[in-house]
């Protein structure tokens, strides 16, 4: 039966398990399920991948948070005995590495993945399977990084992992290797993701969406992807050198063999400083979306915001040596990097002022996401100002490697990036999951987090200026640090409580009533589609006429040039009925997962036995082979659903009936593979 159903229509895919056998590589059936747990392993939908990124980042945030609380427990009092110095060094190393690579970066990736296609009016990212591959490599990188907890010792040389202490002579265990291999793998994720999202931003924007009509979040995420594209390879090079050093005694950083250990520092910070902007720019983008929405007026100085973001992206490459003012650079280099570091404060200052300008004259609705966004502006300002005080390099020779620095970068990355991203979660939660988070719990979360954060990291300015060095497993009594360290520990546990409230909020909010498609009266395209958006995002690709397109479809200019609500509400970009034409969507695939799975085998193989690496190599080879032979859209996808139920999930409702006629008009049998023929003969 049903030649008519053999059409290149990919939406109606079943839950896979009952699928008809199709063998792209003779290995296993091409997955077709869009619901159920298995669909999460094979999905190429940018929204599902975004959710996977976010959930995984929150899981690692839990681990990194436990590590943070262990640090604070140890330092609550002088001569702390909670951890041994060896354990403490592992915990602070893993805290930093986890928060940077497995929390803030993937949270940013979660937002970028989920939002960019929606904000530019696309169905998906440019390379959906590569997108899935990015997520899986990130996950496996994170697992390799954390495997030390179970395999005899975690990395213990700091997230910066300076040579030569990272060499075999001083770090004979496998801890440093887990750090190195884990981040090498996670780096592939960032690099692939960067290429993918850059192409998406540049090539897949809806008609009419010029670059200067792109939402600011997408802009900042785009700048971030360019930073990743150029910064990650530098880290990767450094890590390859380190890998050769540790596996084969290459001696790139070994002074005994004539090398200069400062080489590592230069490479690491050439990556490491752009990395700071990689973490903060997406959060800047998020609050640049939130603040206008709740001020009910456009972002103040959109072009300045965009160009200051780009300026930060460029200048961020010229300041790395400010991490090395005490390392032994000559005074001329120190002077040059002092200057460049001073002036990177300018574009950042522009952003702060423009956010204030956006608030100014608005009619502010103080919601939970708005509170987090305003907190970012207020707290990032503190981090920016302490940053200027580090740019004064003679002062920095006092401040560097003290808690003053710890205070600085937590005001930037926690008070800034994380507050912004948590605000983003509250903001887009109704869009992503179709229901709001509870408001009251949200306020509890906000106030506990804000209070806890400032109690934890505010006093670190003081103990830092009082000369308390960082990365120290304990401190002596009588240094004047006791009181504030206790305050910091209390504050840190408040932060812990605030996130328990958040977790509770996520749990109890599941049964909240469905959210409106546009609950905040927002501005960009994603608010014009349903909540949550359908798999195909938009029934028809929206045509963009101006910045904040969705907003301008809702409001028109009144008599006195004031905006008033349009007489007719705008047509939504998606409806429950779905598009009239079947949307062209990529099909799920196992290969990204298989390919990513090969990498940890190679990593562990290099450490333990090359046989394991060979297994990984075979997996990678097969996956690349299978992937390249697999069409991105399964020609047979969706024709085995006839008679099955339970495949509605994200699939387009009512499509099969609607399109029976369409295919009748197109007598194109797509039964080209033997499997299809088999099925047809059934």
């Amino acid at each position, binding site marked *: 039966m049903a030649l008519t159903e053999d059409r290149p229509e990919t939406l109606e895919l079943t839950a896979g398990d009952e699928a008809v056998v199709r063998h792209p590589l003779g290995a296993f059936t091409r997955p077709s399920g869009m619901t159920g747990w298995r669909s999460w392993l094979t999905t190429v939908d940018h929204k599902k991948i975004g959710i996977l990124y976010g959930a995984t980042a929150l899981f690692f945030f839990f681990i990194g948070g436990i590590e943070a609380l262990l640090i604070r427990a140890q330092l609550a009092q002088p001569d702390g005995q909670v951890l041994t110095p060896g354990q403490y060094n592992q915990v602070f190393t893993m805290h930093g590495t986890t928060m940077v690579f497995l929390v803030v970066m993937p949270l940013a990736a979660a937002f970028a993945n989920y939002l960019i296609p929606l904000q530019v009016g696309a169905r998906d990212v440019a390379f959906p399977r590569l997108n899935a591959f990015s997520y899986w490599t990130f996950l496996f990188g994170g697992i390799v990084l954390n495997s030390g907890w179970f395999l005899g010792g975690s990395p213990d040389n700091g997230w910066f992992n300076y040579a030569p202490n990272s060499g075999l002579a001083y770090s004979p265990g496998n801890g440093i290797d887990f750090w190195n291999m884990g981040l090498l793998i996670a780096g592939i994720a960032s690099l692939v993701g960067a290429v993918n999202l850059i192409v998406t931003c540049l090539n897949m924007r809806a008609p009419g969406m010029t670059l200067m009509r792109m939402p600011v979040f997408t802009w900042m995420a785009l700048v971030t992807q360019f930073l990743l594209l150029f910064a990650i390879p530098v880290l990767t090079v450094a890590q390859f050198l380190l890998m050769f050093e540790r596996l084969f005694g290459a001696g790139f950083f070994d002074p005994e063999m004539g090398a200069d250990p400062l080489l590592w520092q230069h490479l690491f910070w050439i990556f490491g400083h752009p990395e700071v902007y990689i973490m903060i720019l997406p959060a800047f983008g998020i609050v640049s979306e939130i603040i206008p929405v709740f001020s009910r007026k*456009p972002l103040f100085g959109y072009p300045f915001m965009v160009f200051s973001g780009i300026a930060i992206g460029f200048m961020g490459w010229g300041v790395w040596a400010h991490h090395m003012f005490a390392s032994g650079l000559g005074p001329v280099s120190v002077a040059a990097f002092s200057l460049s570091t001073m002036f990177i404060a*300018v574009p950042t200052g522009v952003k702060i002022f423009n956010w204030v300008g956006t608030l100014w004259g608005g009619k*502010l609705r103080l919601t939970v996401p708005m509170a987090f966004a305003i907190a970012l502006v*207020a707290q990032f300002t503190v981090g920016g100002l302490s940053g200027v005080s580090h740019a004064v390099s003679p002062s920095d020779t006092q401040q560097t490697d003290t808690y003053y620095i710890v205070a600085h970068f937590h005001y930037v990355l926690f008070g800034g990036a994380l507050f912004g991203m948590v605000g983003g979660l509250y903001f887009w939660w109704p869009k992503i999951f179709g229901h709001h988070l509870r408001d009251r719990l949200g306020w509890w979360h906000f106030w506990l987090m804000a209070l806890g954060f400032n109690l934890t990291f505010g006093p670190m300015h003081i103990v830092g200026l009082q000369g308390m060095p960082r990365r120290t497993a304990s401190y*002596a009594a009588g240094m004047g640090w006791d009181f504030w360290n206790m305050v910091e520990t209390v504050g840190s546990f408040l932060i812990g409580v605030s996130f328990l409230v958040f977790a509770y909020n996520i749990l109890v909010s599941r049964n909240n009533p469905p959210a409106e498609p546009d609950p905040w009266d927002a501005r960009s395209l994603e608010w014009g589609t349903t909540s949550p958006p359908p798999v195909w995002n938009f029934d028809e690709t929206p045509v963009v006429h101006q910045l904040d397109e969705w907003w301008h479809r809702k409001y028109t200019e009144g008599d006195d040039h004031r905006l008033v609500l349009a007489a007719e509400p705008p047509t939504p970009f998606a409806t429950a009925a779905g598009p009239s034409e079947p949307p062209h969507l990529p099909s799920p695939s196992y290969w990204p997962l298989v390919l990513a799975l090969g990498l940890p085998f190679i990593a562990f193989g290099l450490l333990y036995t090359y046989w394991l690496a060979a297994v990984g190599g075979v997996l990678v080879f097969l996956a690349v082979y299978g992937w390249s032979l697999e069409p991105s859209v399964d020609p047979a996808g969706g024709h085995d659903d006839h008679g099955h139920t339970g495949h509605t999930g994200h699939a387009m409702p009512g499509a099969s009936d609607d399109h029976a006629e369409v295919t009748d008009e197109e007598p194109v049998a797509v039964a080209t593979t033997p499997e299809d023929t088999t099925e047809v003969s059934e």
Partner: protein
Amino acid sequence: MQIVRRWGRLAGLLPLVFLTACAKDAPQDFLQPEGTFAKKIDALWDPVFAIAVAVFVIVEGLIVFAVVKFRAKPDDDELPEQIHGNFRLEIGWTILPALVLAVISAMTLPVIFELTDEPDEALKVDVWGQKYWWGYEYGAEGNEAYGIEDAGIRTANELHIPVDVPVYLTLQSNDVIHSFWAPKLNGKKDVVPGRVHNWKLQADEPGVYSGQCAEFCGTSHAFMRLKVVAHDDASWAEWVETMQAPVETPSSGLAAEGYELFAQKGCAGCHQVDGEYEEVADTAPAAPNLTKLFTRDCFAGCIYDLEDRNELEAWLRDPQRKAGSLMVIGELTEDEIDRLYAYLETLR
């Protein structure tokens, strides 16, 4: 309103909170410098901090004001005026901060070079960093004016200097990167293997200044501390004389037995005692030079009090009480510990 109160309070409190940073009992507080170079740095910090506080108050004030003033009234559905930006204003707040930063830069640049210049006249000390203690060597060459004679002086953890004289340090590492830091006397300088770095110190008043390794260097990084002891002229001369007086080998009693044991147990394979156990090359010391051990107050990276007999005995029983310590001594009987202690006590 909660937001307002909160940030208002913070804005008011912050400068106050910073003042408490100048506590009297904070021996590493670099906002209370005690030496020429540290004071130069502090003189830069003061105006920068003042500017930062001013900017902080302005920005946070604007945020608080905006949040109070522009809150939407309930049931007010009318849109505010849709302002898209203000080019002149934005150019203004691009240029103004740049000018402020240019002023800060102009103040900063000369100090960078001043702090790097080699002083014309200075006490020169070689500093060796290694896991997890500091070694110091005062060579005779160029140091005649400070009373250092041919053999020079070797000591550990406590750096002794005369007041009001620049001290020019030559920093080298025997293993990984460390960072030499005595906050009240100057900023920090990394000690990098394979490289020779120089750094300056100067104390304006006699006293004992606390410091520690500031670059993560491994397991016991937190326990690689140091002291700088600044002497006035008379006490400097006395210290130099003591340090250069020959060591007397104990000839009888427990101390003499300890002297034998020091060699038998292999202590002398790493620890040098000038005039007695000199097999160890006098550069790149593998373990602290013990020549005048009991003139010091602290040992093992300055974390244990030398005046407390129990501390040193506990150390001889188990040097791993400091995690990652490289000292290997094997199990000693209490009797052996007594003898060793008796010998070490004569090193003064």
